[in-house]
C-alpha cells in the first residue's frame, strides 16, 4: 500500500507507564519535530486531486449549471454536480438536511455546488472556476427576528425530522424548555433582589491547525478505502454508505493523522466528495482544503443571545432563574438539537436553584452552519450565568466568590432537570482553591535600577505586547472568577458505547498486548492512555496500538470529553475479560484451581500476597487471547419536551477559574496575566495530559473572551476567513496557568475518572471578562471583548 502509514501504529515500550503516571505521548516528539504524518501529507501514486466549487451567496436559487468548459480542460477527469449523485443526496449527524451537493438552492456562503477531479490541484482549481453557475439571490435570514418574521423564507420546507412537530416556526431547529418549581410565582414574591441582563457570544471557530483532508482509494470490490482525519470513523461510515450507494462494509475508513479537531470534524466535510470522485474516476482522489476554504468547510460554535433574570434573597440565596437562550444554528442542523439540550439543561450553572424557567432554541438561518465545538452549548450559557452571578453579587453587596459558594451544588443536589448529582461535585472547594492561591506580583513588567533609578519595561508583559503600544500608562489590574458545569459523554438517552479489541500473546519470549480501537486520536492523548490501561490491567510492558479503522467496532466520537471514560473504559473492560481468560487458561494448564485473587503484574501471574504462580508467556504458550467487547456507560433519558425533566446526563464535570488581567484603559488592550484553574478529574489517568487539557481548554476560552470571532455580515458572508484576521492566542497572549487537580472518584466511571477537556473552556471566558469588568468598570455584555468596547 503506497499510502503513508498511519502514525498511530506505535509500540510503546516504556517500562513504567500504567494508569496514574504521566506516560509520554508516542506522537509528541514527531509533532514537535515536524515528522508527524498528517492527513494532508497522504500520497498515492496515480492519485487525482479533488476540488470543491462553493456558493458565493448566502441564499440563492440555482437556475443553471454548465460544466462543459471545466470538462474540456486538459487534465480534468471528472466534474460532478447534484445530478450525478448515485444514491442518497443528503446527510447529517442528527437530521439529514444537508445536501452532498446543492441542487436548486444554496443556503449559506461556501455551500458545495460541484466537484472536480484533475491530475493537479491547480488544474482542479482552474476547472472549478470554469464551471458556470447561474444564481438568483434570495432574501437572507440572519437572526431570530428575520428567521421568524411573518413571511420569512422557510429554509427547509416540509420538515419531517423529530423536532419539526414541537417547534413554533419551521426555522427553529429544536426548542427545549426546562421548568422546575414556579419561577413566575417566585419572581413575584417580595424582598427578592433581581438582576437582568442580555449577553451575546460571537461565532468562535475551532481553528484546528490541520485543514480538512483525506484520500479515497477505490477498491476492486467496488468499495472504497478512505484515509481521513475525523472525530468518529463509524459515524462518517454511517453517513457515507447511503450517499455512495454501498453497503457499510464496502466503505472502509482508516484514521489519518489528525491536526486538531475541537468539534469541527464531527460533521462530514470532504469525505463524501473524495469518495464520489474516486468511485467515478476509478482513481485515488485526495482533497485538502486550504486555510481560506477551511473557514467555510466546517461548522463553528453557535453564536448566541442569552437573556437572563436572576432573583435571590438578601442574604444571597438564589430563588429563581429565568432565561432564554437563542442559538444561531446556521443553514443546516448539524448537532444543533444536542447543543440546545446542553444549553437548556446546564443553563443555570452549578447552582442550586429552586425555581427555574429556561428555554433554549436553535435557529435555521443563512449564516454559516454551526455545530460542535469544545464546550458544546455549555460555553455560551456559562458566560451568561457567570456574568449574572457577578451582577447579582454587586447588587447584594456580596463578594462574588462568596455568592457562588452559598449557592454551589454538591453531591446530592438536584439539577433543574430533576437529575440528582450522584457523584462528587466539589464546586465550593474548587472556588476556594483558586481564591486562596497567591496573586501574581503587580507590575511585573517594570524594573527600576536601584543604583541609577532608571526604569525599564518589558513590553512583552504589558497589554499590547510586542506592538510597543504602552509602557505602563493607564494600566489597571482586575481579578475575576468563574465556575462551570459540563456534561461528559453523550446525553439524552443516546446509546453511547465504545468497542475495544485486545490481544495478548508471547512474542520473542515476552508478553505483548495489542490494542485495537476505532478511537480517533485527535491530539487528546487517547493512544497514550490506552497503553497505560493495558499495562495496568495485563501486567505487560510492551503494548502495541493498532491504527484506528472500521475493521473493529465503533469507539464513538472523540468529543463530549468522553474518550478516556468510554474507549478507555472499553479497553479496561476488554483487558479484564482477557485477563480472566488468561487465568482460566492458567488454571487449566497449571491446575491452580479457581482463585479469584490472582492478578497479572510484571509479566507474571501473582497472588494477592505477591507469590508468583507462573510467567504469563508460559500460561499462554503458543496461544493468543484475543477479544473484542463493547462498553456502555449507564443509560440516560431524553428530556421531557415540555418540562425538560429527565436523567439526561451521564456525568458532570466542574472547573473553576480565577483570571488576573491588566488592561491598558486608554487603549482598551488586555493582557491576561494569570489564569488559575481548579478542576476535579475523578482520577488523573495521565496527570501531564490532564494538565495539558486544562491549559488547552482555558486558552481556547481566553481566545473567546478577547480575540476569536468569525465576523459575519447581515448578508451572511464571512468577513475574516483567514488567520490574519481570525486571531487565536499566541504565546504572548497565553498567561501562566497554575492548576489544582482534585481526584474525587466517581464510582460510576472506570477508575473513577471524569472527562476533562471541556469544562476549563467554559470558565476561562467569563473569568477573564469578569476581571476586565473589575479593571474597567464597564458592563461588557458581549464576547469577544474588543478594544473599542473598553474606551470612549
Amino acid at each position, binding site marked *: 500500500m503506497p499510502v503513508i502509514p498511519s502514525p498511530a501504529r506505535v509500540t510503546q515500550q516504556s517500562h513504567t507507564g500504567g494508569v496514574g503516571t504521566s506516560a509520554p505521548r508516542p506522537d509528541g516528539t514527531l509533532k514537535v519535530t515536524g515528522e508527524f504524518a498528517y492527513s494532508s501529507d497522504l500520497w498515492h501514486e496515480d492519485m487525482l486531486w479533488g476540488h470543491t466549487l462553493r456558493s458565493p451567496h448566502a441564499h440563492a436559487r440555482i437556475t443553471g449549471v454548465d460544466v462543459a468548459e471545466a470538462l474540456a480542460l486538459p487534465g480534468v477527469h471528472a466534474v460532478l454536480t447534484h445530478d450525478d449523485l448515485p444514491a442518497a443526496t443528503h446527510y447529517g449527524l442528527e437530521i439529514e438536511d444537508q445536501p452532498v451537493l446543492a441542487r436548486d438552492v444554496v443556503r449559506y456562503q461556501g455551500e458545495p455546488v460541484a466537484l472536480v477531479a484533475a491530475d493537479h490541484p491547480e488544474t482542479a482549481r482552474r476547472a472549478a472556476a470554469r464551471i458556470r453557475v447561474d444564481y438568483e439571490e434570495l432574501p437572507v435570514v440572519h437572526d431570530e427576528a428575520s428567521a421568524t418574521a411573518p413571511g420569512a423564507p422557510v429554509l427547509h420546507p416540509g420538515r419531517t425530522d423529530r423536532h419539526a412537530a414541537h417547534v413554533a416556526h419551521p426555522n427553529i431547529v429544536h426548542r427545549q424548555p426546562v421548568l422546575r418549581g414556579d419561577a413566575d410565582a417566585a419572581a413575584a414574591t417580595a424582598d427578592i433582589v433581581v438582576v437582568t441582563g442580555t449577553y451575546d457570544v460571537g461565532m468562535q471557530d475551532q481553528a484546528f491547525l490541520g485543514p480538512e483532508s483525506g484520500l479515497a482509494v477505490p477498491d476492486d470490490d467496488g468499495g472504497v478505502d478512505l484515509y481521513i482525519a475525523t472525530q468518529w470513523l463509524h459515524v462518517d461510515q454511517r453517513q457515507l454508505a447511503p450517499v455512495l450507494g454501498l453497503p457499510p462494509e464496502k466503505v472502509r475508513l482508516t484514521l489519518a493523522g489528525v491536526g486538531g479537531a475541537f468539534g469541527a470534524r464531527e460533521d462530514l466535510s470532504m469525505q463524501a466528495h473524495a469518495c464520489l470522485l474516486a468511485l467515478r474516476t476509478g482513481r485515488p482522489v485526495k482533497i485538502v482544503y486550504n486555510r481560506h476554504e477551511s473557514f467555510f468547510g466546517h461548522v463553528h460554535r453557535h453564536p448566541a443571545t442569552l437573556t437572563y433574570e436572576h432573583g435571590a434573597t438578601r442574604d444571597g440565596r438564589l430563588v429563581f432563574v429565568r432565561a432564554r437562550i437563542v442559538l444561531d444554528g446556521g443553514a443546516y442542523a448539524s448537532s444543533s438539537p444536542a447543543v440546545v439540550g446542553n444549553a437548556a439543561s446546564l443553563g443555570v450553572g452549578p447552582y442550586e436553584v429552586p425555581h427555574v424557567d429556561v428555554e433554549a432554541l436553535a435557529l435555521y438561518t443563512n449564516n454559516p452552519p454551526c455545530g460542535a465545538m469544545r464546550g458544546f452549548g455549555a460555553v455560551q450559557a456559562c458566560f451568561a450565568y457567570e456574568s449574572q452571578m457577578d451582577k447579582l453579587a454587586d447588587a447584594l453587596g456580596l463578594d462574588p466568590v462568596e455568592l457562588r459558594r452559598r449557592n454551589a451544588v454538591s453531591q446530592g443536589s438536584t439539577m433543574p432537570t430533576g437529575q440528582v448529582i450522584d457523584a462528587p461535585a466539589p464546586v465550593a472547594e474548587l472556588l476556594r482553591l483558586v481564591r486562596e492561591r497567591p496573586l501574581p506580583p503587580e507590575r511585573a513588567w517594570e524594573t527600576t535600577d536601584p543604583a541609577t533609578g532608571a526604569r525599564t519595561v*518589558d513590553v512583552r508583559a504589558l497589554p499590547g505586547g510586542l506592538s510597543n503600544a504602552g509602557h505602563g500608562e493607564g494600566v489597571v489590574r482586575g481579578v475575576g472568577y468563574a465556575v462551570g458545569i459540563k456534561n461528559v459523554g453523550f446525553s439524552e438517552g443516546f446509546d453511547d458505547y465504545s468497542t475495544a479489541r485486545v490481544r495478548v500473546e508471547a512474542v520473542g519470549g515476552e508478553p505483548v498486548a495489542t490494542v485495537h480501537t476505532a478511537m480517533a486520536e485527535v491530539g487528546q492523548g487517547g493512544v497514550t492512555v490506552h497503553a497505560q490501561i493495558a499495562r495496568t490491567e495485563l501486567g505487560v510492558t510492551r503494548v502495541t496500538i493498532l491504527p484506528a479503522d472500521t475493521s473493529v467496532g465503533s469507539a464513538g466520537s472523540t468529543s463530549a470529553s468522553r474518550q478516556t471514560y468510554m474507549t478507555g473504559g472499553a479497553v479496561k473492560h476488554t483487558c479484564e475479560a482477557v485477563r480472566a481468560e488468561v487465568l482460566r487458561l492458567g488454571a487449566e494448564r497449571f491446575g491452580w484451581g479457581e482463585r479469584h485473587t490472582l492478578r497479572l503484574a510484571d509479566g507474571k501471574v501473582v497472588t494477592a500476597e505477591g507469590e508468583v504462580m507462573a510467567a504469563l508467556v508460559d500460561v499462554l504458550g503458543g496461544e493468543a487471547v484475543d477479544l473484542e467487547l463493547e462498553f456502555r456507560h449507564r443509560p440516560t433519558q431524553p428530556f421531557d419536551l415540555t418540562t425538560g425533566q429527565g436523567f439526561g446526563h451521564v456525568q458532570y464535570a466542574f472547573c473553576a477559574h480565577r483570571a488576573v488581567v491588566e488592561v491598558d484603559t486608554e487603549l482598551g488592550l488586555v493582557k491576561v496575566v494569570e489564569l488559575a484553574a481548579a478542576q476535579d478529574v475523578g482520577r488523573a489517568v495521565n496527570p501531564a495530559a490532564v494538565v495539558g487539557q486544562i491549559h488547552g481548554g482555558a486558552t481556547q476560552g481566553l481566545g473567546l473572551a478577547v480575540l476569536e470571532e468569525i*465576523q459575519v455580515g447581515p448578508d451572511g458572508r464571512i468577513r475574516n476567513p483567514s488567520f490574519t484576521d481570525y486571531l487565536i492566542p*499566541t504565546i504572548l497572549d497565553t498567561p501562566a496557568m497554575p492548576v489544582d487537580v482534585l481526584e474525587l472518584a466517581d464510582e460510576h466511571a472506570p477508575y473513577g475518572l471524569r472527562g476533562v477537556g471541556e469544562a476549563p473552556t467554559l470558565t476561562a471566558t467569563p473569568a477573564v471578562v469578569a476581571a476586565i469588568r473589575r479593571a474597567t468598570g464597564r458592563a461588557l455584555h458581549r464576547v469577544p471583548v474588543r478594544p473599542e468596547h473598553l*474606551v470612549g
Partner: protein
Amino acid sequence: MDFLRPADWREALAAKAAHPDAVPLAGGTDLMVELNFDLRRPARLLDLSRVGELADVDTAGEGDTVVLGARVPYRDIVERLRSPLPALALAAHTVGSPQIRARGSVGGNLGTASPAGDAHPALLAAGARVEAASVRGSRLIPIDDFFTGPKRNVLADDELIRAVHVDAARGPQQFAKVGTRNAMVIAVCAFSLALHPHTRTVRTGIGSAAPTPVRARAAEEFLDGVLDEGGHWDHGRPVPPSAAARFAQLAASACAPIDDVRGSADYRRHAVAVLARRTLHWTWSAYPAPQGAASCA
C-alpha cells in the same frame, strides 16, 4: 507563470524593463500568501533572491546615512540597526513572527505599499528616501511622495526598489502600534515620532488610519512651534500637558480611517491620539541625554 531569476542587479533591471508586468519576489511574505490563496496570478515573477547587493547594509557611505538594501530582513534591522534607526527597529520588531521577520523586508513593505505596512510610519518620521532604479537610471524618492493610494506607490512599471536611505537618528525616535493581539498582528493603527534636534523639527508617521501612510503635518507644525517658542530644544523640559494633548488631537485629525474587521474608525482616531501623546512623552523623556529611557524588549 514565468519565473525570472536574474543573477545580479543589472540583469534584474533588464528583466523588469523587458517584462514590466513581472512582480518582484523577495521574502515572499506578502506575495506568496496571495499566490497560495489564489488572490493573484501574475504572469511573471521576478525572483530577487540571487541579487546579493539587495541584502547589504551600508552605514559607511555618504555622511550618516544608512543605505538599507531592499531585502534586508526585519530581523537584521532589529538586531543590528537599533542605534542608527531606532523607530524602524521598533517597527521591525512588531512585524509578524520570528519566521516572518527572518524573510520580510522594508523593500517588500514599500513594494506592497499597504496602509498597514509596519515600516512606513517609521520611514515617514525619519524622512527616508527610496532609491528606485531602472535601465533608465536611478532616483531617490522622498518617502512623503512615495505612497499614492491604497497598495499603490509612485514606482514606474520598469522600476525596482534597490534600497532605502535613512539618516542615522540624531535624536530620540519612537514607534508604537495597536493590535488586538499581543504579537503577530496587523496594525489597527500605528504612530511614529522622530525628534530632529539638528533642524529643531519633529516628524511623524501614521499607519493604518488613512488610505496611505501619512504624516500628521499640522501636529508636527504645532509641536515645532511649541518647542521653539518654549525654548524646549535648549532646556529640554517637558512639553506642557495641554500642548501634548493638542498635538495628540491634531495627530488624530490627520487620520481618515475606515471601519473594518480590525477596528472602527472612531477607535483608530482615539488610539492614534493616545499613541501620539505617549510617543511624545517617551521621545522627549529621552532628550537631550538618554536618561534611562524606557526601553523595549
